[in-house]
């Protein structure tokens, strides 16, 4: 009954500042606190996983024990005590719900508050949603319609049981078990997440979307997403994240793997709004995420779009391995930090194949006492003849106490490669603000408007259904940034 301590009263008090900061009062089942092989076995057993999956997890766990947390990012936080957290928490319903009718009404209520109605008839037209609450997936909508097209869209725990061959073939093939401290931890304890498979030549008939919600206290969330676009297919996927307002820091360490086979295209969008902490820097999510896409086939394309407004600390570098000849990688990013938030984010574009192209557009906005770092690697391997990269990094500062940093790494080991990098740093000018206010627009709204303008190129990349929400989020996340 851990999540019961805060009640709906808190919700009212939160006001507009972090409107997703409420806690759902629901009974939880947890694994014992701390991390050891038994906890890994517990999670695996809870999920009814086959032995190969358990062995995979245990391998990751043992490896993780030998690893140390990376320190190269420009983020500062007190040492995380990995023994002082829960690694599995699930709403206590007896069996896994079969349909929406069986989902606990309190959960449906939570998603309604988040603006994500799970009842299919009320859904945004053409958006299928998978909702992950703490460690388990609670509902996947539009399943039947997708099945008709041959698209598999389900919780990864279900995929492990029912599409074992596919999962086994691709899981860990982009982000290896040993990749990095947080990814290895995730490999050992991931509890749920989303699995997508789009068959050959199929254009997924609707946007796919997952909403991740951390609810329980002292609990880490470790979701795992695996998306496979088979030859000539197309899929657009969006994830949204929110968490309650709490004084403690909570760890979120996800892994996302994308695989695009020949001629396939994956568009992956994120609107990350985990609880950022309060104005004094108290609480907030530590968001350490490994996202990587593999353009495995010729002429494949992977496009990452992220709007990062939440989390106390963001550490993520959605990357593309451009293996297939003529494959294309894109990274469009908005990272907003306010108050005491810290973000160290960017991308890696690894050009392995001939005629591969990549494009990076990064917009960093920093306000309050926040620090915002773009860190990006463009690497052109010797065989990647005619590789092209274009990088544009723009930073916007609001106030005097924040910081923006750009750290580009470029390795070009093929003479025919062309890598372009442009960077700018600017401030919201007083005359722009005055122009807006003199036309009746209040200061905060003016800041939101100007920042949205600054981010336009990236916002335009979002699926239409979510662009408006994202624009609002930009405004909300900058509240209190101008005196």
């Amino acid at each position: 009954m851990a999540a019961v301590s805060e009640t709906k009263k808190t919700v009212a008090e939160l006001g507009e500042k972090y409107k997703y900061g409420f806690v759902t009062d629901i009974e939880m089942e947890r694994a014992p606190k701390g991390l050891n092989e038994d906890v890994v076995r517990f999670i695996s057993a809870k999920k009814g996983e086959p032995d190969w999956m358990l062995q995979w997890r245990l391998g990751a766990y043992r490896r993780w024990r030998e690893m140390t947390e990376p320190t190269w990012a420009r983020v500062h936080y007190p040492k995380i005590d990995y023994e002082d957290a829960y690694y599995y928490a699930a709403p206590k319903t007896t069996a896994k719900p079969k349909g929406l009718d069986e989902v606990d009404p309190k959960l449906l209520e939570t998603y309604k508050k988040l603006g994500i109605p799970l009842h299919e008839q009320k859904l945004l037209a053409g958006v299928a949603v998978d909702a992950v609450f703490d460690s388990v997936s609670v509902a996947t909508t539009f399943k039947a319609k997708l099945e008709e097209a041959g698209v598999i869209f389900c919780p990864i725990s279900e995929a492990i049981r029912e599409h074992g061959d596919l999962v086994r073939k691709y899981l860990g093939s982009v982000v290896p078990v040993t990749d990095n401290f947080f990814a290895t931890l995730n490999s050992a304890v991931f509890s749920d997440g989303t699995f997508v498979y789009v068959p050959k030549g199929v254009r997924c008939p609707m946007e796919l979307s997952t909403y991740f919600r951390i609810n329980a206290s002292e609990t880490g969330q470790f979701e795992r997403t695996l998306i496979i676009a088979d030859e000539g297919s197309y899929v657009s996927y969006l994830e949204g994240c929110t968490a309650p307002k709490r004084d403690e820091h909570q760890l979120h360490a996800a892994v996302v793997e994308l695989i695009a086979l020949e001629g396939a295209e994956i568009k992956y969008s994120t609107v990350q709004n985990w609880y950022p902490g309060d104005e004094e820097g108290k609480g907030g999510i530590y968001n350490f995420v490994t996202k990587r896409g593999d353009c495995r086939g010729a002429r494949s394309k992977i496009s990452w779009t992220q709007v990062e407004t939440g989390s106390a600390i963001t550490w993520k570098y959605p990357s593309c391995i451009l293996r297939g000849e003529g494959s294309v990688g894109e990274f469009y990013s908005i990272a907003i930090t306010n108050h005491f938030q810290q973000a160290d984010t960017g991308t890696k574009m690894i050009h392995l194949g001939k005629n591969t192209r990549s494009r990076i557009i990064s917009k960093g906005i920093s306000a309050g006492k926040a620090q915002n770092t773009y860190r990006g690697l463009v690497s052109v391997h010797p065989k990647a003849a005619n590789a092209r990269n274009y990088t544009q990094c723009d930073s916007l500062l609001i106030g005097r106490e924040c910081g923006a940093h750009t750290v580009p790494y470029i390795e070009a080991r093929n003479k025919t490669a062309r890598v372009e990098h442009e960077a700018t740093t600017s401030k919201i000018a007083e005359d722009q603000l005055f122009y807006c206010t003199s036309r009746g627009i209040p200061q905060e709204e003016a800041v939101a408007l100007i920042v949205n303008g600054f981010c336009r190129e990236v916002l335009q990349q979002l699926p239409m259904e979510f662009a408006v929400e994202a624009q609002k989020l930009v405004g909300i996340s900058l509240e209190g940034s101008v005196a």
Partner: protein
Amino acid sequence: MLEIKNLHVAVGGKEILKGLTLAISAGEVHAIMGPNGSGKSTLSYVLAGREGYEITGGAITYRGENLAELSPEKRSAKGIFLAMQYPVEIPGVTTLTFLKTALNAQRRARNEPELDALAVLKLVRSKAASLNVPEEMLKRALNFGFSGGEKKKLEILQMALFEPALAILDETDSGLDIDALKLVADGVNRLRSPERAMLVITHYQRLLNFIVPDRVHVMAGGRIVAKGGKELALELEAKGYGHWTKDAA
């Protein structure tokens, strides 16, 4: 409607307006002329409430209210509009979005219902047509890469849209070709009404052929140094400012 009494204003610690007195009644159009650097734009910014323009003496009363106490956005909602001498570029924000945001912010502040996107579009289109502002301009980022004349036209489009009670035009005619000048003047004249007042800052008497003012003021050294009817503008054009600036400094 507007009463400015012995106004002193400092910018960056330097006194720019040095005891300016001016009153405009509803229904009137006043023109201000004066040499470069005499403080015309400073006056317009003070009226609009720009930060950093410190009132060190005197008072401004607008419809019986002390203007100094109102934020720029409140002034706007209460009907004050400044067409700026140098309109500001805002990259990435489309002109139409800006107009909608501003219009609805003003309406909200007045407790009027907000207009939806379609209603705004219709309204903007009708105003744009009368000012010969091409539709394509509305889709571009606000003032971004606009020519000097286009920027000025957009200011007048905003004036037409917001229908302010007090419009201040700071050198809106500078940079306009003759056709645009007439369109702008038409726009201003259409808005003239017994409830509205206008303050037109200009260097050229030519504008005043199209917008005929009730009063003309000559400003020099941060003060009004002469006033008269529309014939004063003609006199200025003939003689220059030398006659008045001698004893102004």
